[in-house]
């Protein structure tokens, strides 16, 4: 359920254009910057939940990588925004991302141990897939500034790697114990 809630937030925006070949939401560059920074911050915040919810070393290492990488990307995005004189601007896409993150976090918070591991890794698979889709279908096509677009393109392989890492880790986790069934 978790990744669905999260993915829906992003894909709702992407699929809004699905029925008719209407253009993707036309975000300004300051809005694209805000979406990028929000997407990174959400994954950092989610990863910060991990140490207090699981002792699984591989899951903890994954979360550490998420914090390191998304922090590095946000630092780069911030530096570029400053250089370009762009002030990230709140918008419908970043708001729906934030709303999805809040509900995903509420579902993860009560879980611990193996149940948390599965739910968190499900979330990370769904989230990184949704971010990849957003980069390809929404953010890159709508971005006007070449340097900002290059940053998005440069970040894409890291997101794809996180997705593979998350899928692999999720597949290593044991299925839930079947009790009472």
């Amino acid at each position: 359920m978790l990744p669905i809630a999260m993915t829906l937030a992003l894909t709702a925006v992407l699929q809004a254009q699905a029925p008719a070949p209407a253009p993707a939401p036309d975000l300004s560059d300051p809005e694209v910057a805000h979406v990028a920074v929000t997407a990174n911050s959400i994954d950092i915040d989610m990863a910060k939940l991990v140490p207090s919810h699981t002792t699984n070393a591989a899951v903890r290492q994954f979360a550490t990588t998420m914090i390191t990488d998304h922090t590095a990307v946000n630092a780069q995005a911030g530096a570029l925004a400053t250089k370009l004189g762009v002030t990230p601007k709140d918008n419908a896409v970043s708001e729906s991302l934030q709303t999805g993150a809040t509900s995903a976090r509420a579902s993860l918070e009560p879980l611990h141990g193996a149940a948390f591991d599965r739910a968190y890794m499900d979330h990370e698979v769904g989230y990184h897939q949704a971010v990849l889709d957003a980069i390809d279908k929404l953010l890159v096509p709508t971005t006007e500034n070449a340097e900002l677009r290059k940053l998005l393109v440069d970040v894409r392989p890291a997101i794809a790697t996180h997705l593979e890492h998350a899928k692999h880790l999720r597949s290593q986790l044991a299925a839930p114990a079947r009790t009472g069934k």
Partner: protein
Amino acid sequence: MIVGLLLLLAGLTAPPKTHTVEIRGMEFHPAVLTVAVGDTIVWINRDIVPHTATAKGQTRWDTGQLVQGQVWRYVARRAGAARYVCTFHPTMHGKVVIR
């Protein structure tokens, strides 16, 4: 005569080279590198996110965290082969062959 032979031998022994492995786009380029004993290998991280190149198995070397633009040098002292990974991104693999 002897001097001439020595010069010839010196000419046959190639001087040590420096090889570079670029880490970019979440990959090691080249993924497989073959060098001679005495050569130097330099890893440089071109990505925004930090990486490592960490030998697996019996070989023990580790770049530690390399942030964007950071380099690490390794002198190939003994023949052998080593596979390595990025400890932050276990899907990233590379191999060094020392001849």
